Each structure stands twice: as C-alpha cells, then as structure tokens.
C-alpha cells in the first residue's frame, strides 16, 4: 500500500515537474502577451498553492515545520550574505539539500519560500511567483532523486549544475514576454544571452556550494536521524 502511494506521488511530482513548464513555454509561444501574463501567473500560482495545501497535511509534525523553516532561513540568509556576488548564492544548494533529505514537498516549500521571503530584501514583483515556482520545482526534483543524491556527491553536483540553467531558462520565458511584449525565439535568445553570465554563475556556484556542503550536511542529517530518530519514525509510519 505504502509502495503504491509512493509511486502515485512520484507520478504526480513528475507531472508537475514536466507538464507545467511545458505548458508555460507553449502558452508563451502561442498566446498574445495580454493572455499569456495572467495565464502563466495563474498556472504558477495554482501550482504553488496546491503544494502549500499538500504541505499543510503534516501540520502536527513540529520537526518538519522547524527543519523546513531552518533550511528556508539558511537559504534567505545566504542570499542576503552573498548579496555582493550576483548569482553566487547558496539558495539552490539549500533547496536541493531540503528536497533530498526532507522529501519533495518540503523541498518545494523551501524553494518557494526562499524566493518569497528573500524578495522582501531584494524586491517583490511579477517575477516572484515564477521564482517561487522554479525554485520549488528544483526542490521537488531533488526530493524525487533523494536516495541517490544523499549517497553520491557527483550526482548531487551534476543536478546542481543543471538546476542553474534550468532556473534561468524558465525565468527568461517570463522576462522575454515582459520586455518585448510577445514571445519569439529570437527575442528569447537575446534575453537568454543577456542572462548568460548569471546562468554560468548559477551553475558554478551550485557545484561549489554543493561540493563543500555535501559531506558536512550528510554528517549532520545522519546525526539528527540517529539522535532524534527522525527518519526512522517516518519509515515506521510509512509501513503502517
């Protein structure tokens, strides 16, 4: 029963991770700006709201709440502390760790809240919901690949390396329509080329932070698991 539920959840996650970005790109290509903007914002908003509602199911779990809060706070604090180096921030790394160690839903929430709360320092705007959705998606994918990412640092860094460009390319869809009024591949290329230094920086910084933090994070999370029985408790609940 538990295995069937896990499979259902994986299928649902994959659907969100693949279908929604594909929908946003398709709408950007075929819809005019006036229709694209509300539709795209609506899709991203509904996806984020749906995950928030899923997250609410664990309302009685204090450890889940506090760990999600700490990973989000580390991510926001990291973005603020590394503000002097544009693009070089540990937000992706923290989101990926949260997904890998705490599960896809928590990873999504850590990514989404990191965008929402850090933008109180860096400025809110129409891009916030897209950042929330895209960072959330990265946390979700990290949750899906959790067992592998927890064991192999090389795969963890590879995921981090591709997460940067993925984030940049999704945000560029929004930026293209916003700046040029309509989506065309040539304008998308111009936007993506403008953002290229950031895209490279994201990829490099993700690998850097994941490489440095992977071992200590594994040690800390294993220690917590043994000391507080956090994950054992979860496994026992799954078996029921």
């Amino acid at each position, binding site marked *: 029963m538990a295995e069937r539920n896990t499979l259902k959840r994986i299928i649902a996650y994959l659907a969100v991770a693949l279908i929604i970005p594909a929908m946003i790109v398709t709408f950007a290509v075929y819809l005019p*700006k*006036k229709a694209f*903007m*509300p539709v795209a914002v609506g899709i991203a908003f509904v996806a984020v709201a749906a995950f*928030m*509602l899923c*997250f*609410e199911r*664990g*309302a*009685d*779990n*204090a*450890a889940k*709440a*506090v*760990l*999600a*809060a*700490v990973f*989000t*706070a*580390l991510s*926001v*604090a*990291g973005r*603020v*502390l590394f503000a002097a180096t544009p693009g070089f921030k*540990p937000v992706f790394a923290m989101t990926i760790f949260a997904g890998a160690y705490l599960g896809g839903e928590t990873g999504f*929430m850590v990514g989404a*809240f990191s965008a*929402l*709360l850090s*933008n*109180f320092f860096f*400025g*809110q*705007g*129409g891009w916030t919901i897209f950042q929330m959705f895209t960072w959330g998606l990265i946390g979700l994918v990290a949750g899906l690949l959790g067992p592998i990412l927890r064991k192999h640092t090389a795969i963890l860094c590879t995921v981090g390396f591709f997460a940067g460009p993925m984030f940049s390319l999704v945000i560029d869809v929004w930026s293209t329509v*916003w*700046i*040029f*009024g309509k989506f*065309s591949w*040539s*304008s998308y290329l*111009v936007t993506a080329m403008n953002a290229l230094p950031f895209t490279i920086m994201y990829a490099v910084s993700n690998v*850097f*932070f994941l490489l*440095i*933090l992977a071992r*200590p*994070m594994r040690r*800390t*999370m294993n*220690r*917590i698991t043994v*000391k*507080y029985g*956090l994950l054992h408790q979860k496994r026992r609940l799954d078996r029921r």
Partner: protein
Amino acid sequence: MHRFRNYHPITKLAFFAVIFAISMFTENPAVRGMSLVGAVTALAAGGTPLKRLLKYIGGGIVSVLLIGVMNCFIAHDGKTILFDLLRRHITLEAFYYGLSAGVMIVGVAMWCVFITDETDTEDLVMTLGKVLPFVSVVITVTLRYIPEIIKKFRETLSAQKMLGIFESKGYFKRALIISKVFMSVTERSVENAMDMASTMKARGYGLVRRASARHKKWRESDTDLLLVTAFCAAFIAVGEKTGDFGFAYYPSPAFVKFGLYAIPMIVACALLFLLPAGQVIDWRIRWQKSFESKA
C-alpha cells in the same frame, strides 16, 4: 506614520493587483507614463531618501534607453527606416515601442519598490494565518531564524578574521573559508532546530487547532479604497474594451481612436496611480496639524 502601510493586507493586495494589471496590459504610452509618474511620486511622498530616488531614476532612464535599442534589433516593423543591418530594417517605430515597453518595466519595478517599502512580513503571515496555519508557522519560524543566522555568521566570520585567516589568501581560498563558516552556521542551526522542535512538542504543539493573531483590523478606509479601486478598474476595463483610447506603434505611432470615453479613462488612471502619493501627503498634513492643535 505612512497611511498606506496601515491598510489591511487584502486591500493592499487588491489595489496593487489592479495597478500591475493596468500597467502591464495597457499598450498606451500615456497610461504607462502615468504609472511611472505615479510610482515615482509615491516613492518621493513615502519618504524615500533623495539620493536613493535619484539613483532609481538614473537607472530607470538607462534601462528605458537600453530596452529601446534592444527592441530595434528584434522588431523590424515601422515605416521610418533608420538604416539596414544584416539585410534587416532598423526602424524608428521599433525604437519607440522599446522606449514605451521600457517605461512600463521601470514603472512596474518602481511600484515593486513601493510595495516592498509599504508591506511587511506581518501582512503575509496575517493573510495566510487563517487559511494555511502550518505554512504561516513555517514562515514565522523562518523570520525568527533569518536575523539569528546572519548575526551568527558575521560573528563567526569576524572571529576567524581576528585569527588572521584571511591574510594573503586568493579569492578562491577566501570563498572557501566563507563557505566553511556558512557550513558551521548551517550545522549549528539544524541541530538547534531539532531542539526547538522537541520544545514545541513538549509544549503541546499540534494537539489543538492553532489560533491566529490579527493586528490589523478592517476599517472604513479599507472599504473606501477598495470601492475607489474597483470603480477606476471598471472604468479602465470598459475603456479598453471600447478602444476609445487605443494606440498603435506600427506603421507609425498614433492614436487609433480618441473617442468620448478617453477623458474619463485618463481621469480614472490618474486617480488610481496618484492615490498612494495623495494618501501619504494627506496623512502627513493631518499628522502635522495634530501637533499644531496640541501646541
């Protein structure tokens, strides 16, 4: 002291949603210009320091020009050909369209600065508290941790600096040291988090339904602002539908139609965009008068 800050979060959300919708979905340069002027006046009235405001305006002018030039290389419509580049026309109309898009983007960005100044995280927690109590707990705990983590990071880093760890090291090694300090803060925070979770559980977390505190109550002024916003939004929406204030950039920039409905639409836009600045100025005058009457 700001009047706008005191509005209920739902009122602010509705008002800014309308402002964004009009600024982003109207192609008319006059409306886009009014949005930009409204945002700048709101920031100026809201007490933004002059130096910061001038920095925004300077950056805004550069951005508008840059987007104007960029659009010339993407759009090739328009009848006034400036020159040909790689067998493509570079037109004046494409430049105008880019300038107009730039005004819209800078206007929206300035409204975003105003929103960031006029809203706080309490608004967020208050809005979510009733609907998603668990999510608002996570946000509240996060907000408690952010300053603590920043403080701890700075303390640890300055202690390391005092030990001379940064002396004659390259950029990469410095980044490595800073990241290691961040890691030590991460380890400490995660451990502390588990202790906090145990404390919460010991105090009965999750046993009963959570209560949510509301510091901002719905006032008459919230109803007034919502009504004005809805009225103006309806006027502008009807105006957009009739096309009485329609504008086209190609083949040459001109009003498609300047009908009877254009004047009320301009008034509605001006009212909506200048409302935040007006509110703040009105509040300041009243504040000043309250002191004078006491004296």
